[in-house]
């Protein structure tokens, strides 16, 4: 055997120096051609001009300590921002007019929400669907007492206890699954456990007394979250029903669903809010008072359901007919095949659009300020009407814009992440 016959590849030449390192990257990505270089310069200039103007006003020339707006004006005029006014109003911007000594309830309510959601992100938890459903359906019951409080009555008390049970059950499940004690939560023992939990919850709730805080005192970011939270929670199931209705073979049901969807999609949210705000009391018998917040929530829910319905319809259309037929062939009924076969696949496709629609809904809640609810935007507006900070207008708006951006941006980033993770199984 001679060594000469074995193929000896030559060592590869190094890449040309002009394509390597920082220089190479810059040449390849920024200045590969003359127009490209010009574009780069232009882009860099726009970014610079924009940020230097904003930073100059918001940070460099801004006033950070002052007792009232007069002091700010005397210091920098209108060239720099006057942040002390916003600082003084931050509690209102976040919690609205909620009594200051009760604000802990809002914090606690949201803490429960976060705690409840934690198992959803733990890798070993398998009952994520059940926990998620429980969160969506039962958390509002629990939160209602945290936020509103007051006299419970029998029915409401029972419902609050249901919420508490859901919370405890979610965590027990998570713990049990962590320790692989699944049998504890199966069969009859699960029902016994649930009954026990409910009894405990009832006992706790009966001893639990919070002062009433009327909804007209709710406001700020808190109110914005409540309204959009309701909208998001209601719109998904309602949207699914409407979409199924629209695709139904029963002509009248399809007609009613289609009319509803098209009607609400064709008008601006502001008109819907307006109609519900001013007209709902006229539609109901004299003497029936419907809470202003509730009216806004109903309007937002109806509106967003119509949008969600179209997203869901798009998702349903993307499912191959074979899936429906296969489901029918193994003897599944309409509701079974829809909920077990079609929807799970459709929902996965729809995630980006659903999150997009949630973001839209969250942003759209700014409109409730127009019917006089003290959401984040109205509160920002109220800052400039405070005699101490009279005329302070741009700064609170800037602040609120930042809050919206942080929320919406994180949501959209999470949706990218989710899309990437769920799509992983689909990629080939």
């Amino acid at each position, binding site marked *: 055997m001679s060594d000469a016959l074995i193929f000896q590849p030559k060592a590869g030449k190094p890449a040309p120096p002009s394509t390597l390192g920082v220089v190479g990257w810059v040449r390849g990505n920024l200045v590969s051609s003359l127009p490209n270089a010009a574009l780069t310069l232009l882009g860099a200039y726009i970014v610079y001009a924009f940020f230097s103007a904003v930073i100059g006003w918001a940070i460099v020339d801004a006033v950070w300590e002052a007792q009232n707006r007069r002091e700010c004006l005397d210091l920098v005029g209108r060239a720099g921002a006057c942040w002390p006014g916003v600082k003084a109003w931050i509690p209102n911007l976040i919690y609205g007019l909620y009594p200051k000594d009760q604000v802990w309830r809002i914090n606690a309510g949201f803490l429960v929400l976060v705690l409840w959601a934690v198992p959803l992100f733990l890798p070993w938890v398998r009952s994520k669907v059940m926990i998620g459903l429980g969160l969506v359906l039962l958390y509002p019951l629990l939160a209602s007492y945290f936020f509103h409080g007051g006299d419970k009555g029998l029915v409401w008390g029972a419902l609050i206890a249901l919420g508490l049970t859901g919370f405890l059950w979610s965590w027990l499940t998570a713990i049990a699954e962590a320790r692989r004690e699944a049998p504890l939560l199966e069969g009859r023992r699960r029902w016994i456990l649930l009954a026990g939990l409910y009894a405990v919850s009832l006992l706790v709730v009966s001893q639990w007394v919070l002062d009433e805080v009327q909804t007209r005192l709710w406001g700020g970011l808190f109110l914005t979250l409540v309204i959009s939270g309701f909208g998001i929670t209601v719109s998904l199931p309602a949207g699914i029903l409407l979409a199924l209705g629209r695709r139904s073979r029963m002509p009248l049901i399809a007609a009613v669903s289609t009319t509803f969807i098209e009607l609400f999609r064709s008008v601006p949210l502001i008109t819907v809010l307006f109609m519900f705000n001013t*007209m709902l009391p006229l539609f109901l018998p004299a003497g029936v008072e419907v809470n202003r917040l509730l009216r806004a929530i109903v309007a937002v829910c109806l509106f967003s359901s119509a949008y969600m319905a179209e997203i869901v319809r798009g998702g349903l259309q993307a499912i191959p007919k074979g899936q429906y037929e296969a489901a029918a062939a193994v003897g599944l009924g309409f509701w079974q095949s829809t909920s077990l076969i079609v929807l799970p696949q459709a929902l996965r496709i729809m995630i980006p659009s659903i999150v997009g629609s949630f973001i839209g809904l969250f942003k759209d809640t700014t409109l409730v300020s127009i019917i006089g609810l003290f959401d984040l935007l109205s509160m920002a507006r109220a800052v400039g009407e405070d005699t101490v900070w009279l005329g302070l207008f741009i700064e609170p708006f800037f602040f609120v814009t930042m809050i919206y951006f942080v929320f919406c941006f994180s949501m959209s980033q999470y949706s990218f992440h989710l899309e990437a993770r769920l799509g992983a199984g689909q990629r080939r």
Partner: protein
Amino acid sequence: MTTPILSNATARAIFYQALTVLGVVLLFWYTITNTVENMSQRGMSAGFDFLDVSAGFGIGFKLIDYREGDSYLRVFEVGIANTLLVAVIGIALATVIGLVVGLARLSGNWLISTIARWYIEMLRNTPLLLQIIAWYFGVFNLLPRPRDSVEWGGLFFLNNRGFYLPSPEPGQGFGLTLIALAAGIAAAFVVRAHARQRLFETGKLPRVIPAMIALVILPALLVFALTGQPLAWNVPVLRGFNFQGGTSVPPSFCALIIALSIYTSCFIAEIIRSGIQSVSHGQTEAARALGVKPSRTMRYIILPQAMRVIIPPLISQYLNLTKNSSLAIAIGFPDLVSVWMNTSLNQSGRAIPIVAMTMGFYCAVSLAVSLVMNRYNRRAMLSER
């Protein structure tokens, strides 16, 4: 309940439908009787008689003629005209910007594609209402006062009262020029169709663009000169507080248009990007293999296929833009919602007819667009195999 009638699919279908209809009818009946009773009890009037009453307030920007003494009905018309104007200009601008940003997003230049990405992320994640206010105060209110206007050739002026431009005043016989222009455009289209025919038959694209331009311009110019140049320009002049004459648009209009089109352009850019990316890469490769030039690959291979994905969401963005123009109220541009559902409602107090008319208008627009869209969809679907 196991009787055969209940498990019969037809019977169940009839039952569910009857149920739905009954529910809807009951809901309407309940709502209407309550409303009628409440209104009569509280002495509110639902009639449309107020439409003839003089409105009595001024409107800062109107496309059609309006005076303070005109009726509420006229205000409604002014509002509709303004809303439609915003929608049309906004849609055109948004499409152009969206296309540019969408392509920038796909650009090989790292800085450009990154800027495009952040542009989209930043703008679509902040409420439009706040963006409109930001444009109004951050840009248009900071422009110089009328005396120090930015001017272009003594014809166009930009200041913090708005944008002023000369307005054409057609004289006797200007219609003929317009007819010649229309005929020229039609002829140019015929030439273009012919050129396309040639392209598909022979694979060669004749140079027709200079001919097309000549066809559009020359006859019109000729007629214009022959009829004695019947067109005067009314140039804005600074007099008293502000520019007089010409046409002008207020800063609120500029801010609204820019905010709306930039906001919508983010969504359009994403639609265009995903549309182009949805065309399988094999198509590009196949075109390259056949020796089609890259520019023509885009024009004749990719875009026609991408359009099918792009058009439906694009139209719904157009509708969104039209609906979002109702946010004009925040900066006081007199669109339909601002001038009708806010000011007129406030001055006349007739909530029900006014809200109903506003919603009716938006419904009508959407319905009209949906009809056209459905027709397009049917055509696009048919050509698919």
